[in-house]
């Protein structure tokens, strides 16, 4: 697929994304769209660490929660603007990520994945028992003002959609810039063959920290938006492992390591969630989980590069053998 076609497709996608909420007037459906966009943004953020650099994290909710809590606390305690809170939340999440990442990046593959679960769960337990930040009860955000400056919209949820879209575009831009720069090459080298990467001068921990810093910042920004939209956060809703899993899922399904894969994954995931909810009511009675599970297994076994990877390889007839098992670190 040459560049011209790709660009055209992207523009069409963007245009339809901008128009969608105008064409869809049902507020429930609009909410679905907002959720889809927000999921996509989180997926793109996750992908920078998990897809590009190959460091699979099942604990990203920690960054999401740190973002949400930072901006919310700043708003409640100091009346700070949520936009400032978004940046502060991002910074806080980045600091936390680097602090935690530095020792943990020594761990390979599944040890690291489990460690991310451990860190996020510990954080959730801490916040659940920390009365100063609301504990298990959570935080309710004040709705004194409305409008763009206050990042609260009551009469119509549409502005949330466009802000989410803006965040998604920003995240995609960051993702694209990484991909097209030396960082993209370095991340992929680290992902493919860490030892060989070292032999050509790449400091593994250093660059993994860069990846997690960017990834956590963007994820935290998403957390702030969530907090401003729902106007209520608690550890169970913004720090749970189930949320971390959903964030990872978006990229795993859509295409680990591809730019737009997470967007596709988010569309599919949110779609399935809505569909199963409508058909089976309530939480979908597990049917969404069954579908996710099946999809992940199929994708992991047959298309480890996600659906996008699968499509790409079909189109370009790329077919190369995997290196010997001993080669992967």
């Amino acid at each position, binding site marked *: 697929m040459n560049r011209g076609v790709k660009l055209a497709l992207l523009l069409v996608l963007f245009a339809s994304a901008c128009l969608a909420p105008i064409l869809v007037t049902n507020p429930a459906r609009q909410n679905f769209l907002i959720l889809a966009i927000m999921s996509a943004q989180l997926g793109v953020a996750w992908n920078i660490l998990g897809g590009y650099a190959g460091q699979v994290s099942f604990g990203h909710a920690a960054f999401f929660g740190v973002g949400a809590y930072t901006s919310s606390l700043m708003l409640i305690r100091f009346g700070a603007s949520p936009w400032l809170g978004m940046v502060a939340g991002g910074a806080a999440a980045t600091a936390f990520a680097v602090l935690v990442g530095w020792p943990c990046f020594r761990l390979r593959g599944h040890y690291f994945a489990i460690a991310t679960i451990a860190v996020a769960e510990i954080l959730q337990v801490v916040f659940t028992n920390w009365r100063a930040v609301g504990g298990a009860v959570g935080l309710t955000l004040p709705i004194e003002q409305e409008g763009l400056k206050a990042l609260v919209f009551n009469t119509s949820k549409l502005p949330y959609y466009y802000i989410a879209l803006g965040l998604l575009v920003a995240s995609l831009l960051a993702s694209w810039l990484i991909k097209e720069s030396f960082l993209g090459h370095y991340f992929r080298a680290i992902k493919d063959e860490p030892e060989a990467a070292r032999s050509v001068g790449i400091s593994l921990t250093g660059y993994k920290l860069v990846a997690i810093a960017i990834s956590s910042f963007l994820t935290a920004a998403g957390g702030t938006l969530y907090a401003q939209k729902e106007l209520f956060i608690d550890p169970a809703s913004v720090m749970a492992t189930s949320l971390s899993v959903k964030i990872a899922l978006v990229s795993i399904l859509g295409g680990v390591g591809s730019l737009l894969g997470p967007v596709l994954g988010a569309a599919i995931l949110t779609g399935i969630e809505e569909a199963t909810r409508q058909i089976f009511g309530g939480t979908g009675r597990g049917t969404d989980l069954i579908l996710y599970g099946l999809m992940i297994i199929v994708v*992991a076994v047959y298309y480890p590069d996600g659906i996008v990877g699968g499509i790409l390889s079909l189109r370009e007839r790329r077919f190369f053998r995997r290196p010997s098992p001993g080669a992967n670190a």
Partner: protein
Amino acid sequence: MTFEILLQTLLSGILIGLVYALVAVGLTLIFGVMDIVNFAHGEFLMLGMYASFWMFALYALDPIFTLPITALMLFALGAAVYQSVIRRIISASMLAQVFTTFGLMILLRGIAQFLWKPDFRSIDRSLVSGTVRLGALQFGLPQIAAAAGAVLATLLLGWFLNRTRLGAALEATAADREAAQLMGIPAQRMFTLAWGIGAACAGIAGALLSTFYPVFPEVGGNFILVAFVVVALGGFGSVSGAFLAGIVVGVVEVVGGFLIGPQLKLALVLLLYLLVVLVRPQGLLGRA
């Protein structure tokens, strides 16, 4: 007074720790034989709990008696899972393996939720209901029975691995797959066996737990994290390590929870995981 309470918590920790050990043993066996971390291990435990529960609820069969049936069912399931899914990702990248067992975890949870709804179930009256008093100390009989069952199962597994030819073949495959194959030990069969035994261990643990622990689709999640900590502490791949580590983790959890507060139990245990993998990655008895 405090000494007795401490002793009570210590022994309670050991009791649950033995069950953790059994769960972890299955997990570490699979890892030792084929280098795959089974993220769906908690779900085998969950299914063992449900099997036990339904046989009790529908046919009034006591969990202690249906234990062998549960074990067999989970063995078959583990072997089936290997043959249908895992077999295809033996040589795949670690990422693909992680995602696959992860997907399996979600799939099994979804199936459980769909079939049996998210409600909490429990077995209220079984052969081992009641409490046991030892002076000022008091223990639940189900917990004691579960611990005893776990020890039995682990000893059985140890006997199998160390004293039977099949067990030796399994250990050989774990130590050096190619060498074992060159000696005529079929790797595929060993992998299927490992998955069967691993799942059975989790299933037995589930059956034992069902006498006092609530049964619900997400219950696997409670145990998988602890299992990871135990496996890491014991050393990935070491069965005896998992056994020792299970007891340690159980004690840390219960005693720690008593000293710091029960809501922070999980954080404590997870902190232990981080400490172990960062400070001593090979755990207590693992291979480097």
